[in-house]
């Protein structure tokens, strides 16, 4: 879907992206992660040609982006940056309609699409369409930014720290909702962040970068269990295991058929991180898992939990 081959970009003496090759599958949510200045933004912007690379090739849908007219390329690739990117002098509806208008859609089709998009990102069109960006909260503005990027139904979405400026609560809400929306639409997403928690929560795979180089591109579980270099483990730190736990739920883990008497209860949808926290606070190394009918489906033990994650 998106393929980077030996992409290199220098700013004067400084090599911002150094021989990066990676392939992102259709429908995948790939994270570009790494310390500030490691080349994430430059890599992302080379895909829609906001940055011109020095050498290498980039394919989107098996088409070489360097052989396409940049403005036309960008109309087919959604691009979301922090909320500053909304046009303050235009209404929300006009902001979202930016690409449809560039593509010359008629008014009826555009309006219909705008309403559909606003609903998709959880904003009531009747309430929001005619407002201006300054009348919206940061989280609402970011929803509009996502709606604008999705307007022409792009197969690829590029996002550069889109939730970076939000307070923790609205950030988490948007992360969860965005993840569900992305799954539903099947959009291929390249998502830049420097926030490990966000990367582990959202990413199908994480491309960890350092000093312009791609260090490892794998599922978070693989990064945890088989780090390519010591930098990988030290970057993710001791709490990596806990963050991985938050990606998984109790559902699917083999339960033991013993008496659940006296154990704290969780549901199949509880994240393993929360399950672990419940074990710790209840002072027991096992939990009862509800069967959704008021009874218990079985008992989840600490060792089963640890075992499940290691797989």
């Amino acid at each position, binding site marked *: 879907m998106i393929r980077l081959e030996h992409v290199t970009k220098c700013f004067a003496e400084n090599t911002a992206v150094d021989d990066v090759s990676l392939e992102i599958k259709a429908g995948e949510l790939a994270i570009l992660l790494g310390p500030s200045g490691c080349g994430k933004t430059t890599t992302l912007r080379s895909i829609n040609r906001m940055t011109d690379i020095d050498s290498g090739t980039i394919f989107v849908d098996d088409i070489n982006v360097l052989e396409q007219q940049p*403005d036309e*390329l960008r*109309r087919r690739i959604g691009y979301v*940056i922090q909320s*500053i*990117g909304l*046009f303050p*002098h235009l209404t929300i509806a006009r902001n979202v309609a930016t690409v449809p208008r*560039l593509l010359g859609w008629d008014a009826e089709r555009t309006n219909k699409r705008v309403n559909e998009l606003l609903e998709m990102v959880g904003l009531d069109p009747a309430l929001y369409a005619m407002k201006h960006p300054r009348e919206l909260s940061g989280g609402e503005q970011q929803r509009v930014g996502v709606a604008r990027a999705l307007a022409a139904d792009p197969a690829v979405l590029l996002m550069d720290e889109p939730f970076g400026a939000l307070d923790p609560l609205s950030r988490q809400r948007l992360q969860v909702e965005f993840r569900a929306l992305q799954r539903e639409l099947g959009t291929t997403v390249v998502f830049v962040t420097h926030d490990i928690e966000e990367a582990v929560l959202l990413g199908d795979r994480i491309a960890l970068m350092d000093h312009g180089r791609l260090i490892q591109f794998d599922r978070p579980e693989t990064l945890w269990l088989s780090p390519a270099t010591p930098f990988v483990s030290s970057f993710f730190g001791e709490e990596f295991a806990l963050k991985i736990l938050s990606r998984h739920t109790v559902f699917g883990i083999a339960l033991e058929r013993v008496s659940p008497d006296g154990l704290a209860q969780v549901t199949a949808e509880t994240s393993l991180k929360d399950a672990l926290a419940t074990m710790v606070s209840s002072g027991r190394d096992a939990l009862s898992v509800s069967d959704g009918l008021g009874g218990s489906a079985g008992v989840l033990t600490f060792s089963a939990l640890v075992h499940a994650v290691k797989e």
Partner: protein
Amino acid sequence: MGESLGIRRNWPIVSLMIAALVWMTLDQAGFGRLLGFLLPDETTLLYERETLATLMGQHLVLAGVSGALALVIGVALGLMLITPAGASFRDLVVSIANFGQTFPSIAVMALLVPIMGYGWKPVVVALVIYSVLPVMLNVVAGIENVPPAMVDAAQGTGMNARQRFLAVQLPLAMPIILGGVKNMLVIAVGAATLGAIVGAGGLGVPIMAGANQFKPALVLEGAIPSAFLALIIDRTL
């Protein structure tokens, strides 16, 4: 654009000022009585050789024509200076425009009269030279004040350079550009009184006559409407 300028206009007061200006221009006798009330010792209250309406008409044409020319030239120069090619001329053009503003308008007119003769032409040239700078600088400042991230976002949606300029940069720069135009017009309306010196007429005529003949009422007859004109422009734009 009023909302984006962040200035709330007091329309009742503006309407009152406009009504007052129309009244003093058209009701000569009434305005004369007012001047007589202000300066009870004066006998000559009004300029006799021209009606105030005629002088006002001349004044508006002088200021209007110069303002329009300064607007066109200032915007054109400003737009030139923000292009990559024009940026290298910026220091030069700004220095020249600065010089044009500091060089006394009276001197410009005096230098132009031998070439262009008496009348409105030297006045308009002098006023334009004087007024171009604020317009040009505000066009440049307005465009440059648009956050680069905004222009970047516009580019990211697939707008080309012309679309970015028309849909994003220009509208966002408009409050600052209009601020420059307003300043320019206020200045032009005041400076148009200089037209009297080279026989172009305008509200400067009674002011000059009053100054020469020590008749303060005539000075007020020109100065009061001229000040109202400037105030009205300042409050409406």
